[in-house]
């Protein structure tokens, strides 16, 4: 048991990232050097289907998007608990009790989701 072996698998990921960075540097440099440039004010203006852009660039996002982001957090945390459970529940020393524990966990979350569903939070208005 030594540290080199454990980190070996991750070292490759690091290398992949470094090579990726090199790839981007080369690609962007090549683009800068080789592309033709004819800048004009029209090109840099905001795209508006051919007419002149009017007003600011910012449209306020609907609050309903935020609800989905919150649900995502909720379920990301839930899956994070589900993953270790999924690989171990069949091992020795776990079994029925572990499954019931997870069932309760999921049921509580599902109850919350059901409440939101009944309150019509989930329906797109």
């Amino acid at each position, binding site marked *: 048991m030594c540290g080199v072996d454990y980190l070996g698998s991750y070292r490759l990921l690091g290398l992949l990232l470094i090579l990726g960075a090199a790839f981007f540097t080369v690609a962007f440099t090549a683009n800068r050097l080789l592309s033709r440039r004819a800048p004009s*004010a029209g090109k840099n203006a905001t795209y508006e289907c051919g007419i002149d852009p009017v007003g600011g660039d910012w449209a306020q996002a609907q609050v309903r998007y935020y609800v*989905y982001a919150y649900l995502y957090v909720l379920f990301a945390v839930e899956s994070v608990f589900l993953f270790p459970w999924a690989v171990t529940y069949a091992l020795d020393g776990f079994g029925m009790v572990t499954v019931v524990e997870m069932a309760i966990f999921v049921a509580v979350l599902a109850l919350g989701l059901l409440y939101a569903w009944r309150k019509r939070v989930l329906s797109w208005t």
Partner: protein
Amino acid sequence: MNLAESPKLEDFGHDVWWIILIKVVGIFAFLVVMTLFTIWYERKVVGRMQHRPGPNRVGPIGLLQSLADGLKLAFKEDIMPKLADKAVFFIAPVISTVCAFTAFSIMPLGGMVSIFGERTPLQLTDLPVAVLLVLACGGLGIYGIVLGGWASGSTYPLLGGLRSAAQMISYEVAMGLSIVAVFMTAGSMSTSEIVAAQANGSQQEIFGSTVTLPGWYFLMLLPSFLIYFISAVGETNRAPFDLPEAESELVGGFHTEYSSLKFALFFLAEYINMVTVSALCTTLFLGGWRAPAPITTWWAGANEGWWPLLWFTVKVLILLFVFVWLRGTLPRLRYDQFMRFGWKVLVPINLVWILLVAGVRVAANADNTVRYAIYGGFAVLLVGIIMFWPAKKQVEPASIAPEKLPEGSFPIPPMDLVVPPSPRTKRIEHAAAAPSATPEQGE
């Protein structure tokens, strides 16, 4: 089936440096070639579906078309919109592409091979939490789209980016949950071990009788497979779920303001993501790089050496064909239908299915009392769900009876307008009944 060539988790992480380099460059090359090929393949398949030849000019049967397009795109003038947030505008496509590349690094393309005399697994790397890496990369890849949309400083990209992000996070949840059942069956989160676990058919006890099920998980875990594939289509923003790019509403979605190399990177990331989700689907549900059953029965060496790369690629291409097929067949969904489908159908079914799988697995090992208690519990739950399922509300058709609009309204035709009989029909009837005079004639 011989399992000796199947790599273990310990086989990873101590390659010689030049093997690592070959593998990393190989992964890059594989992904870029797959991307270029997939674009050609998609255009060709969609073309055939629409009774036209598709690209056929550049290279043999148009094979080099996407390469030509890609090179041209990458060397176009780079435009930075005036209102854009310069740094973020630049980082966004880079984030997308890096995440797409990284996610593919743990895909097992084959078993043990020898490269210039070195025995090494045909896979860049594997981790005990490999599949989580794909999910993490998927989660980070969303940043590319949100930030790209935000940094453009324009309304269409902002709305497109937000839509896209909301869609991707919704389907990321469904995807993560659909994978749980695979973890439960394989008992591991490492991709090479999941492939190894599907090598042999498993003995399953279903209601007291023992049956040998085929090893591939798409049979045993069919609901998971379906949910995974549907959410994979949603996650990659492909038709019929390509709402972020709904041209008729949002111009181009989050990449409206992007051009040249930065746009090419978004494009690359999208196609790599498609390849990645197909590859993950192959790995998790379709037996990974192992040859399908009829081949292995008459050819024992099908899973040795470099052949697995072929099986893997063929499986990925078949899945990619389904992506293209969906695009060629289905119309785009409405956004609210799409979100409703994700949250109200995929996620709940998934949760119930996970608990069902766990219950059946545990019941198979338990004694009879516990087993009947579990099955009884499921039966009660099922009956409960059926009984308390909300009845469909009867919608009364809106009345179009003529009504009095207030004085001074804009004049509109009456709603109960009846088309008067055409004078031409009369003439035809008249001609048909010419010999004998009819009463209508007199009118």
